[in-house]
């Protein structure tokens, strides 16, 4: 029996202005977002390749390894086509330098605030905002609209159970939504192939899961639409309620959750940590000096009042031991400071992690942010992106530093050696460095396995939302007043 409904629902949808308008809009937008995403990715890729090339070129002009400025660049990943995530917010590269630590600088948005004004139109955005709206538009009057049209009574004047009706209704609407979705994703996939984006099998796999979770996502809104429609008598009211739900879950909860987590679990800034460490080390140093002073006073106590010669003798005898002693004290102090600062940074790291955990867990009350998180994790443009690159770059820095010291290190710049009244600048060795010797930066691996593992929980959450909404819709309809 439900097949009759399915058929009717499809026919009804396909003939309505609503269907035509919404599916045209969503197909156009999704295709557009694919195109823009690909264009953006390719621009970034060529920028990346160009920059790396130029870096190598300038470095190869150098005659001294110390003078070569080496950068590690963040490599664009094809998954960015679908989810830009925090990609444009964090720096694109870091200088690899003996002196300074890793710092990702020059974010795309920072470089070009124009892009930050309205941000990108990526696929995950379109899905998150537009498809959910479409889903609501499809189902806001699924039940109460039939009542308003008087057809609900006519239907139930027949030998039909409520379960059959609602199942047919859901399935019909779902298929009607799925059609433009599949069409537009196929167009997108064709664009990807036609425009020559190099996607590995793993990328396609991640893309498939992305598409799957997009389906889960809009299905969820569709079910919520039916649910609300089965709770209300008038379709104008159900639409209002759904619109508010949509605003809250798509626009408000994600933002509010991160901000509330930021307030509830404030994390000190790096500068604050540094100032703490600085004041700790000043204190440690004063303590150190005080204890040294005391030590000196004690050391010379045995020779107090004796002649200069005896004193010198005493010093000479003990010098080695004292030096050892002093070294030990200094080392313990240094160690203490190092430990303190390591602890502070670890604390910061942990605090940031738990802040993030809180923020993201709070935000997951909204299917929209659950979807966004899935998308970002699949795309590898989640908050972990920065950390992954920083870690990889830190490793690379170690490698590079070792390499430099093998090359006969020392600090960069111009080395002057002065000997017997004639000076030479020794840095100006005529031979150019061979850039091929340099270790290569390898991007952090973020494979399909990791991506899928990371997003699995949120995909499950989306599925759970679906089940809840389905049960809600079902139960609400069982209690629906048919008159």
């Amino acid at each position, binding site marked *: *029996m439900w097949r*009759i409904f399915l058929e*009717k629902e499809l*026919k*009804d949808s396909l*003939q*309505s202005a609503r269907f035509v308008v919404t599916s045209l809009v969503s197909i156009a937008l999704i295709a557009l977002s694919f195109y823009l995403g690909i264009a953006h990715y390719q621009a970034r890729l060529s920028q990346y390749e160009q920059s790396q090339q130029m870096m190598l070129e300038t470095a190869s002009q150098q005659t001294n390894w110390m003078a070569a400025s080496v950068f590690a660049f963040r490599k664009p990943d094809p998954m960015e086509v679908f989810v830009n995530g925090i990609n444009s917010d964090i720096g694109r590269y870091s200088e690899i330098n003996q002196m300074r630590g890793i710092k990702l600088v020059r974010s795309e948005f920072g470089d070009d605030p124009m892009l930050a004004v309205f941000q990108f139109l990526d696929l995950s955005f379109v899905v998150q905002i537009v498809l959910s709206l479409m889903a609501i538009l499809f189902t806001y009057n699924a039940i109460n609209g039939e009542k*308003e*049209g*008087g*057809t609900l*009574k*006519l*239907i*139930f*004047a*027949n*030998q*039909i*159970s409520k379960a059959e009706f609602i199942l047919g209704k859901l399935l019909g609407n779902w298929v009607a939504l799925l059609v433009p979705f599949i069409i537009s994703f196929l167009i997108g996939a064709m664009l990807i192939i036609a425009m020559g984006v190099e996607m590995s099998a793993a990328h396609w796999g991640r893309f498939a899961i992305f598409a799957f979770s997009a389906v889960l996502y809009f299905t969820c809104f569709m079910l919520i639409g039916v649910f609300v429609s089965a709770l209300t008598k008038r379709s104008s009211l159900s639409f209002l309620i759904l619109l508010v739900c949509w605003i809250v879950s798509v626009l408000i909860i994600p933002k509010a959750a991160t901000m509330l987590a930021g307030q509830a679990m404030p994390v000190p800034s790096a500068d604050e940590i540094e100032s703490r460490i600085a004041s700790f080390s000043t204190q440690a140093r004063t303590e150190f000096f005080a204890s040294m002073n005391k030590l000196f006073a004690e050391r010379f106590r045995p020779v107090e009042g004796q002649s200069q010669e005896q004193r010198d003798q005493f010093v000479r005898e003990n010098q080695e031991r004292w030096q050892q002693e002093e070294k030990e004290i200094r080392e313990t102090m240094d160690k203490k400071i190092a430990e303190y600062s390591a602890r502070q940074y670890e604390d910061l790291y942990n605090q940031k992690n738990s802040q993030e955990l809180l923020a993201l867990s709070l935000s997951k009350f909204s299917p929209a942010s659950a979807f966004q998180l899935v998308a970002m994790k699949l795309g590898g443009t989640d908050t972990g992106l920065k950390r992954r690159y920083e870690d990889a770059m830190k490793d690379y820095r170690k490698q590079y530093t070792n390499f430099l010291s093998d090359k006969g290190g020392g600090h960069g710049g111009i080395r002057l050696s002065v000997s017997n009244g004639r000076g030479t600048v020794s840095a100006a060795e005529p031979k150019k460095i061979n850039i091929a010797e340099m270790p290569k930066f390898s991007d952090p691996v973020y494979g399909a396995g990791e991506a899928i593992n990371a997003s699995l929980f949120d995909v499950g959450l989306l599925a759970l939302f679906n089940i809840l909404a389905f049960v809600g819709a079902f139960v609400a309809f069982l209690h629906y*007043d*048919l*008159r």
Partner: protein
Amino acid sequence: MEQHATISAEGLTKIYEDGVCALDHVSFAVKPGEIFCLLGGNGAGKTTAINIFLGFIPPSQGVAKIHNVDIHRDPLEAKKYVSYLSDVVMLYPNFTARQNLDFFARLGGKHALTRDDYYTALRRVGLQEKAFEQKLKGFSKGMRQKVGLAIAIIKESPAIILDEPTSGLDPKAANEFQTTLLGLRAQGKAILMSTHDIFRAKEIADTVGIMNEGKMLAIKSRKELEHEDLEQLYLNYIHGKVAA
């Protein structure tokens, strides 16, 4: 034994959640080949009674039976034998008249109907030919009413329940409707309809039930009405001039 009633109400009572007593121990029966008109003013309880017959609301007391099946006990079984025209007929605006009819026909278990069958049904209720394949969007109230009527008759069920079927019909259409109804009666259908239209009721009804404030004040057969002025009778009942 007397022939079984296809539609029967025994002591139907409905008290709404807010305490309104919309039906107060109403009993009547409609036999095959009988047209039963529920006559009553606005708010008399006609739609309430009909809603109970279709299982949309449970009765507070009493039993409503269709084809001898208690609608409240076994709604799905009972609904096999009834077709219905509701008081608000909007239907699906995006479907054509035929598509609407097709959908409901199949819901009613008629799977093998052809386009011609639908056209015949639409013709029978007097819808103009050119509207058959037009979307319901542009239909007037009466045209929609006719499609609704076609839906009610195409199921060919033994019981037909119509809630104010003639409201919004033009005189010609009303006349055609009357003919259709008489045809249905001749086929042996039991027809229960509510109406405000005293004159038409008098013309076609085999039995008239006069209702007011949830009570069935009187049930008169055609024979009993033959020599009476139904309008006067109705007003008298409503104003309580005649004891029930």
